[in-house]
């Protein structure tokens, strides 16, 4: 074929001049000065395909143009880190020539429009990120935020998001072992759907998304390309509004069956060492995967779009390049290996096609029906994306909150009434309604199922296990982004510590509003400061993550909601610990100190209907000491149960451990605070332990050595009752059965309001 070297415009597309004169690039989300950069990079006017390619590569979602500078603050290194941010997922060594691979990603905007498919394809995408590293995915988690369940639309979203996550994970056969769900009016109209995948990798199987070796073939594997999700990446980088429904192109539909085939085929290729480079086609589809592979490999690429498997007739280069059809993978292999790859694909019934080859000139060239339709210096797509540092401004609400005293708002509430309300609040209540829809036992590795602080997966062939948890509290971050950022990291680490694990590192998903608003950008910058500080103190590097900005509806931003996905290593299975009380007679200990901290607390919200004031403060050194104490106590074999104190404070933690263990507790404590304040304060760096009588002194001594306050609170009993005495007065006395019932039924009742 004689290839012409002049970049063509297709007859029915706007000409380069028209794109410039009518500023059509704006419709694709490019700013005028960005268009100017493109013209300079090319040395001529871009055609429609090229403008489309730049627009997705320079979208917020792909280029991180508003966050890149701030993300550099995260510590990303550590002695065990094998791969930090920059690839499909982060990789951390866990010994025995094994590594853990994990990443979290948002699918907020697609889920707002089509909750089932939006959530399902979010799960599909994050799984591909993990297995494209050469790892076998072993667990899924998710973090969800919705408005209040009193709204039928929110119930619809919640029901379908959960069903979509279940559908994808269950079908592909990866257990969904954990996550969190929070309901708050702040997320009305802009739900958050963040999905995390964890995989296990043999060191020598680590793959990268790079293209190298001039002349090597570029192979497309998986589902055909259709017109779905064109401009999904751009769409995810804008605020939602009424026009979103219209603007939205065909919604992407997930096919977990296809992904299962793709997964197994890729695992076989990895096992046989066939791959030089592999990257999934996620956001911005073929464009992003191929351009990033070429740029990272310091090579160029030529693709012939006629060879791309297509589902629909008459697709243009623009459409082929920007499609976000799911379940597709791009490979680069050594020349001569094409047949081997094809044989594996054929076995799994997958289509595959050689669609181009690697070149040496760092240019990105696309051919369509014999014509050159794009010719771009590839690095300008990836490395030269714009970078913005918008203005920051301390919001008025933050100043106003300074003077508010949350304790005053709640101090007259009866503790017993408060407990009944808290256990039956949908935010605190059992999430069984959600996780019983997820297959959490497939792969028969799940040692701690959903419901405890962290989930635990055993690693076959070793005595080790992994603990994992996703956490984030948007209320705290809203009230004080710096403290809230610290708390997100600390709480996630505390959760895996309570399971008996040493925190290894984290992945994060930063869900914020429109960064071009100075107040939002301030929240964003502050939260990253706080998270970074906690990461450094707790020695948990950030090995990957995702940013989701423009989470707003009708001009109103969500609470700033960074979500942390933490993974920890349990050295011996005998250290696996859960939050359930284990045996009557065990002594209940509280590590850490309780102050009057009720800003942003569940109790404040239940009493006043809103949040205000300052959130709990987090002292990083105290946090570290508490975590180390608990981990050492668990490793010494002294701990029967461990539960971190979070939303709902001490009272809720006690109730949960009773409910889970089907046991009672008798607790007696002394305090200067009002009983309700002490019991529902959300002070940080506190962990509830139970230990058998003979080990109490061991734990107390250890705590003292570490400078951690340790209080004996009482005893686990076989009376099925929770009794709490404060300063000699019984303030709570409730049958466990009643607490259990309220706690179990809150969400099912909220979901079927007519049947109450």
């Amino acid at each position: 074929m004689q290839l012409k070297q002049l970049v063509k415009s297709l007859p029915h597309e706007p000409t380069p001049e028209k794109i410039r004169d009518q500023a059509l690039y704006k419709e694709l989300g490019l700013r005028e000065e960005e268009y100017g950069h493109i013209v300079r990079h090319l040395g001529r006017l871009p055609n429609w395909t090229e403008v489309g390619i730049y627009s997705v590569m320079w979208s917020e979602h792909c280029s991180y143009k508003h966050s890149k500078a701030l993300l550099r603050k995260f510590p990303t290194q550590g002695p065990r880190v094998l791969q930090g941010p920059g690839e499909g997922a982060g990789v951390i060594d866990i010994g025995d020539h094994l590594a853990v691979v994990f990443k979290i990603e948002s699918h907020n905007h697609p889920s707002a429009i089509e909750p089932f498919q939006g959530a399902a394809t979010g799960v599909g995408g994050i799984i591909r990120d993990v297995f494209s590293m050469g790892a076998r995915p072993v667990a899924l988690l998710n973090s969800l935020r919705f408005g209040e369940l009193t709204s039928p639309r929110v119930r619809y979203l919640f029901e379908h998001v959960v069903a979509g996550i279940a559908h994808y994970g269950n079908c592909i056969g990866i257990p969904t072992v954990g996550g969190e769900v929070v309901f708050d009016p702040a997320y009305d109209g802009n739900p958050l759907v963040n999905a995390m995948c964890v995989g296990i990798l043999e060191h020598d199987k680590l793959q990268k998304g790079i293209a190298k070796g001039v002349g090597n073939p570029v192979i497309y594997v998986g589902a055909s390309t259709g017109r779905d999700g064109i401009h999904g990446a751009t769409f995810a980088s804008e605020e939602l509004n009424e026009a979103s429904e219209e603007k939205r192109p065909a919604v992407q539909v997930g096919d977990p069956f296809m992904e299962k085939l793709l997964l197994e085929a890729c695992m076989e290729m990895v096992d046989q060492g066939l791959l030089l480079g592999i990257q999934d086609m996620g956001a911005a589809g073929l464009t992003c995967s191929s351009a990033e592979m070429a740029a990272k490999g310091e090579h160029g690429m030529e693709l012939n779009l006629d060879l791309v498997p297509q589902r629909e007739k008459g697709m243009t280069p623009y459409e082929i390049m920007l499609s976000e059809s799911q379940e597709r993978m791009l490979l680069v292999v050594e020349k001569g290996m094409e047949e081997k790859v094809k044989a594996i694909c054929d076995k799994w019934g997958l289509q595959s096609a050689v669609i181009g080859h690697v070149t040496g000139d760092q240019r990105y060239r696309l051919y369509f029906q014999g014509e050159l339709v794009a010719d771009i210096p590839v690095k300008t797509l990836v490395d030269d994306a714009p970078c913005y540092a918008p203005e920051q401004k301390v919001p008025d609400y933050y100043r106003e909150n300074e003077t508010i005293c949350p304790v005053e708002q709640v101090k007259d509430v009866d503790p017993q009434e408060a407990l009944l309300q808290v256990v039956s609040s949908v935010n605190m209540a059992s999430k069984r309604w959600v996780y019983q829809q997820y297959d959490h036992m497939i792969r028969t590795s799940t040692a701690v199922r959903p419901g405890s602080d962290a989930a635990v997966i055993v690693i076959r062939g070793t005595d080790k296990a992994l603990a994992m948890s996703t956490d984030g509290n948007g209320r705290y971050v809203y009230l004080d982004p710096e403290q809230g950022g610290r708390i997100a990291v600390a709480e996630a680490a505390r959760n895996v510590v309570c399971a008996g694990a040493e925190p290894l590192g984290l992945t994060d998903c930063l869900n914020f509003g429109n960064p071009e608003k100075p107040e939002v950008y301030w929240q964003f910058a502050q939260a990253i400061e706080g998270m970074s500080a906690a990461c450094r103190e707790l020695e948990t590097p950030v090995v990957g993550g995702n940013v989701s900005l423009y989470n707003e509806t009708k001009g109103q931003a969500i609470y700033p909601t960074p979500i942390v996905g933490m993974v920890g290593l349990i050295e011996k299975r005998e250290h696996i610990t859960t939050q359930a009380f284990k045996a009557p007679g065990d002594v209940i200990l509280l590590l850490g100190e309780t102050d009057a901290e009720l800003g942003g607390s569940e109790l404040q919200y239940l009493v006043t209907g809103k949040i205000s004031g300052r959130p709990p403060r987090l002292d990083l050194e105290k946090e570290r000491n508490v975590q180390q104490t608990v981990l050492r106590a668990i490793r010494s074999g002294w701990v029967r149960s461990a539960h971190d104190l979070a939303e709902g404070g001490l009272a809720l933690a006690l109730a949960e451990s009773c409910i889970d263990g089907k046991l009672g507790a008798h607790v007696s404590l002394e305090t200067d605070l009002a009983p309700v304040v002490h019991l529902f304060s959300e002070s940080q760096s506190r962990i509830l332990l139970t230990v058998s009588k003979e080990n109490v002194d061991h734990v107390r001594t250890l705590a003292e050595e570490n400078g951690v306050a340790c209080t004996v609170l009482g005893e686990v009993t076989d009376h099925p009752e929770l009794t709490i005495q404060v300063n000699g007065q019984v303030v709570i006395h409730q049958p466990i059965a009643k607490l259990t019932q309220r706690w179990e039924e809150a969400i099912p009742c909220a979901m079927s309001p007519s049947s109450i």
Partner: protein
Amino acid sequence: MRFAVTVFPGSNCDIDAIHAIKDVLGESVTAVWHKESDLSKYDAIILPGGFSYGDYLRTGALAAHSPVMEGVREAAEKGKLVIGICNGFQILLETGLLPGAMRKNDHLQFRCSIPTLRVENNETPFTLQYREGELIQIPIAHMEGNYYCDEVTLAELKRNKQIIFRYAGENPNGSIDDIAGICNRNRNVLGMMPHPERAVCDWMGSSDGMKLFTSMLQYWKENYGAA
């Protein structure tokens, strides 16, 4: 004893079944790709759970036409042990090796939990180590476990004592007569929605599924001589 675990595109509990047989029961096990039709080498066949062909059209329907099902049919006719778990049960129904059909759970949601089952008949190769009426805990994980058959068939199942497991507590899917597992008239083909391979070690939440596999082994040793 030589076990085969069939693997269809979309099977995903195959590794768990293999793990239970190889690592816990300690017997030989081979994964058999759906394109093979000769299963004569094996003493028992496990059709594992999962979403064969994505569960598209009807659960088990597309897998029922795979070449390997010819081998399964032959083995069943020869009296070898065949067990279909979850999706495997659905495939056995679609092939007609067991009577009835599967519908969506009555609450229309996927359900993953650890229900209590009652062993209704312990005079089968799969249950001989259980007591009759024994209550056991075996996990379930399915969207379509709502077993259906017409009244004539149900009466026949009862008369021939082909109902092997029933849900003893809450019925998690709405199945007719609380059925969780049935066998054929010859008692060598069993289909069940619960996953015994997920209950073979205490840390999994239950080890009550182990006796199902040890029953099969005992039956085989007694009838086909020690290996």
